[in-house]
């Protein structure tokens, strides 16, 4: 009697496997480097994960015929059929809870939450079941569930459509939390997230869905690794998601003023790659963290606290946070007064430099 699928997990993250579907008429994964939008890169990552492992199934609202409200799952229903791409009734707790049951049976569900603000009806199942079942069962049960969440603001949307709830999950032991920033890492980290035997919250920077970039069909460096996206020597600037591109712009602008900023794209928010961050801060002695989420209790506070603990003697100034304010997400016409932008980031850099 085989109740749980105990077969070896999907290809390990480190071995790129751009499989083609045996049936030539079937769906085809990326084989060559291709220019894709971030949304299409996720679509390609989903397709490849589904090709790699028949146990990968997608669950969510409107992900079938519509292809999701952001078209991230476009074509997948047609290519893989309704047993792999499952339009569910409108209930987030059930989407997550059903995924738990599928995982119990050896499946590897990928849930789509339509917008950041709609994850909360499913919060209990995430925090009390998805995150804890492996621990609860002393390792007997695995929860290889990926929960995809379009997150962040800057798109002029109505309430609940622009939130940054990642810190609720980084405070939840048992989860891994990823935030991607460009088409390449969106593709690579999604494949790693789906292949992971741990549950992963995978945050997609929705305001950058339409930004294009080259995507190589590889897995890249392990998803826990932060990446230095722009090297520098005077200030370490840490961010993730949509603000990575703003931070790069800030580094360019600062360079014009003679300030050298090292920009780090965290990619993994839980765990944070402190090895990379520490090395940078030991070099620069100055840290700025920026994110869209509210400051109090946000990811930035944890990083500032941890880096202060780990690198106290190297810090030349108090670390600075440039974040959203401690307010509910404001109306569209005010969101630019909430979201960190180039100028606010540069003001933070000035502050850490004592200027």
């Amino acid at each position, binding site marked *: 009697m085989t109740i749980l699928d105990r077969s070896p997990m999907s290809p390990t993250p480190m071995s790129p496997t751009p499989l083609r579907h045996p049936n030539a008429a079937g769906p085809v994964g990326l084989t060559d480097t291709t220019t894709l939008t971030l949304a299409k890169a996720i679509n390609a990552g989903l397709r490849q994960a589904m090709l790699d492992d028949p146990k990968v199934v997608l669950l969510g609202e409107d992900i079938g*015929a519509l292809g999701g409200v952001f078209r991230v799952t476009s074509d997948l229903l047609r290519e893989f059929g309704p047993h792999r791409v499952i339009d569910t009734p409108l209930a987030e*707790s059930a989407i997550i809870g059903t995924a738990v049951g599928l995982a119990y049976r050896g499946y590897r569900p990928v849930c789509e939450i339509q917008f950041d603000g709609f994850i909360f009806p499913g919060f209990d199942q995430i925090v009390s079941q998805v995150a804890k079942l492996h621990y609860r069962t002393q390792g007997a049960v695995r929860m290889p569930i990926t929960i995809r969440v379009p997150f962040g603001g800057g798109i002029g949307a109505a*309430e609940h459509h622009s939130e940054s709830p990642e810190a609720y999950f980084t405070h939840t032991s048992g989860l891994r939390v990823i935030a991607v920033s460009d088409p390449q890492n969106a593709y690579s980290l999604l494949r790693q997230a789906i292949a992971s035997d741990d549950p992963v919250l995978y945050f997609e920077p929705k305001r950058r869905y339409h930004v294009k970039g080259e995507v190589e069909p590889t897995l890249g460096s392990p998803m826990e690794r932060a990446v230095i996206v722009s090297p520098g020597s005077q200030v370490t600037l840490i961010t993730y998601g949509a603000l990575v591109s703003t931070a790069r712009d800030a580094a360019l602008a600062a360079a014009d003023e003679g300030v050298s900023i090292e920009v780090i794209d965290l990619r993994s928010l839980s765990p944070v790659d402190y090895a990379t961050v520490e090395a940078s801060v030991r070099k620069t002695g100055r840290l700025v963290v920026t994110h869209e989420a509210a400051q109090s209790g946000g990811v930035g506070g944890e990083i500032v606290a941890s880096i202060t603990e780990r690198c106290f003697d190297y810090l030349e100034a108090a670390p600075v946070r440039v974040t959203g*304010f401690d*307010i509910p997400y404001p109306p*569209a*016409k005010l969101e630019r007064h909430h979201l960190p932008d180039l100028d606010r980031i540069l003001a933070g850099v000035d502050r850490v430099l004592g200027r």
Partner: protein
Amino acid sequence: MHDLPPHGAADNGSPLDDDFIQLLSESGERMPNAEFDPWVRDIGAAGLAALYDDLVVVRRLDTEATALQRQGELGLWPPMLGQEAAQIGSARALHPDDFVFTSYRENAVAYCRGVGLTDLVKVWRGNAQSGWDPASVGMAVPAIIIGAQTLHATGWALGAQFDGADSVAVTYFGDGATSEGDVNEAMVFAASFQVPVVFFCQNNQWAISEPVGLQARVHIAERAPGFGIPSLRVDGNDVLAVMAATRVALDRARSGGGPTFIEAVTYRMGPHTTADDPTRYRDPADLARWAERDPILRLRRLLDAEGLFTPEFEAATAAHADAAAAELRAGCIGLADPEPLSVFDNVYTTPQATLDRQRAGYAAYLASFESSDTRSSNEGASV
């Protein structure tokens, strides 16, 4: 034991069956109904004309708002096209001191409650997270989290019960919403406490791209009795039937009879919102079939048959609608942008130190732009 009722999923997929209350046929004839006719007996010629005026005005407002969105004046708009009778027929049955808890699509209900036209679009223009003061119109601000408002209505009704008030809470939600835990919990609480609340479900056949058959395998109206709540299934495109059913439910609630569930069977003739593309999932033939059942056309045929649809009446109604649309457009375009620092207002009712510090920091930061052309330092300020 409890086997399934005869109509199952297949029937739900073709919801045109007439297993519902109808007082007005598609061709505009009054259909006698001994049980429900008494509830609309007071609606004479003037009443019918007023309802027609409502329907035309709210459709015009809806069209205008859609146009405003297409012209870039609104970020988004959720059209109610096709659902006018469900909303007008129910909202016109309410008393001023009843209280309404809706989702985002109930703009005709808001119109009936007396919400200012400009207030209808504030959210969608991005000026505010809601448009009006609930106390002034007896209507909560819409809930975007699907189903959440049904619990609020239940709680409000519990309060009304404690107060010995003669008021009823009415909550509107969609067919998709019936799948959310909150809506079901609201029925549990409403039944348990026997509070004066009416659950008004507009089954418009779609939750974005998902047909109602995915949410429910039997008629939605059948859900409530299992919670101990009586229900009514009504032709949602028949303004008289909707009004009669709503009055029955309100009357039951006011007389201590507890909650009632109404399923108004209607159709979302437009996209989910202006951002949606229904061609990806909807058969155009479906739309054509439902166009036959247009709620306005139907009342117009009745008025016509009764000699009430005179050219003067038609012109007056059109003029009213045009004036409303013009007011909406002017109000929308004239909305003043909110003040930057208002972003910090009303998070709390009293000062909160951490937030006040953030406000002060940001104020200083903004001021630094005023005082110089280049960005300047802002020591100590946390922005």
